[in-house]
């Protein structure tokens, strides 16, 4: 099992360098953070403003789009069938990709954290929050990828979901009505946690919302995995 997961992980890492569509997902927000944090400074702007904002947009976008695109492409190009013939089971395949995506996203998050000036305990907490966010988004992406028949279907499903998860935290800063809706999504809750990093206080409401989000996404994933993916695999 470890052998198969490692082979898939290594293959994906090599493939990423040639896959511009996926590569840009991993690099876009860390690069934007570097640029914005170093070029824009406005009086009264909250500390780590761009790092925090782009970090949460990164959480909502990169793992979700990358995971759904990779699975959908493998289905469309029939490489998934070949993996089945090589005795790679569906769980090994998904785990290999999940580890790869979370690993690269964490590398990107580390860049954001350093540019944002996080050090010591703050850095660890920031990375932990990012890990939780990337894992949930990756699971949402896996659900879409597993459910979609091809890349086109995956893209049409990924874009609206990604917009909700990545843009709601930003939009909620400008509109209270949006804020009331956004608080039910994990990305908004994680954004609130990142912004309170110096005096973080884990509330029951946060845990409950994160728990419900994970349960809903996990349930969708299990249904899609059992009803669609296992039959296609």
């Amino acid at each position, binding site marked *: 099992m470890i*052998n198969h997961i490692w082979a898939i992980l*290594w293959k994906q890492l090599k493939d990423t360098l040639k896959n511009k569509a996926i590569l840009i997902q991993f690099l876009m927000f860390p690069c934007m953070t570097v640029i914005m944090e170093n070029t824009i400074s406005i009086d009264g702007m909250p500390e780590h403003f761009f790092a925090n904002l782009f970090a949460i947009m990164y959480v909502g976008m990169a793992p979700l789009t990358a995971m759904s695109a990779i699975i959908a492409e493998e289905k469309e*190009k029939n*490489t998934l*069938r*070949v993996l089945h*013939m*090589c*005795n790679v089971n569906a769980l090994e395949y998904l785990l290999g990709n999940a580890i790869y995506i979370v690993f690269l996203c964490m590398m990107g998050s580390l860049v954001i954290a350093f540019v944002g000036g996080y050090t010591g305990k703050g850095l660890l907490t920031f990375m932990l929050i990012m890990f939780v966010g990337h894992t949930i988004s990756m699971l949402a992406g896996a659900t879409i990828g597993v459910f979609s028949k091809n890349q086109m279907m995956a893209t049409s499903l990924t874009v609206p979901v990604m917009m909700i998860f990545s843009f709601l935290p930003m939009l909620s800063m400008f509109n209270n009505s949006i804020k009331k809706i956004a608080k039910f999504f994990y990305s908004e809750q994680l954004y609130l946690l990142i912004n309170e990093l110096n005096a973080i206080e884990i509330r029951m409401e946060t845990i409950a919302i994160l728990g419900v989000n994970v349960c809903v996404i996990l349930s969708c994933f299990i249904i899609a995995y059992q009803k669609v993916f296992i039959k296609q695999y």
Partner: protein
Amino acid sequence: MQRAIKINNVSHSFKENVVLRGINLEIKKGEIFGLLGPSGAGKTTLINIVTGQLNASEGVCQISGMDSSKLSGEQYKKIGVMMDDFGLYERMSCFDNLKFYESLDGNRTSHIDYVLSQVGLLESKKVQVANLSKGMKNRLSFARAVLRKPEILFLDEPTSGLDPNTTKEIHRMILEEKDKGTTIFLTTHNMHEAEKLCDNIALLNEGKIVEYGKPAELCRKYNNQKKYKLHLKSGEDIELSHEKDDIEKLIFYLQNDELETIHTGEPDLEMIFMTLTGGELNK
């Protein structure tokens, strides 16, 4: 002789569409078996069932005595599959594609270079698959199928859409695999390919096997007219039967050195297929 594949009363349908109807076949170890049929006859569906990629609606397939729907990792290592749609990673090089599949098997000793040289792709080992021609992709797909040194090789339309030179190369590679003792199950709608390569063939039409046997025997079996086609040195083309008068004419042409070429009028597999189904193989 030992049996490599047994297909026992296999039927399959996709919702209302019946694709295979009661298929029974036995393929011996070391033989090249050809499944001939027009597009949509059910050839790929049968390969998918035999290789365990699809569960048949009815019936059982066995590979080396094992139920093909329950093949384990070690049993999968004994089969190689070349699919009609490649299933290669387009952004990776030829070498990296094979390296990946080899690493899935946990092989420590690599013979990728040897396999690439066998299929004539050693010089292109660092070329991205996306930049290969269709013939080169076919050869790489063949290389991937034989990389595990399989006991049974499944080739789905291995030369479909290829130029004559590449087709010849693929035929050479198939015959080399046969010489190594590999059992080969190939699907094709090319009758010449089947006649040239296969020890036994089955003609598949609308999901049913309509004829089975050795290509040469089938051609003789359906040779109802029993005629010879002669081309004389004078340029004249004539057709002779087995009648006494015609045989005397043939002896006359031979004795007087007037004969340029002589051919039997046996039907080819295409004609046999048309006789049996009223359809065409190369549809």
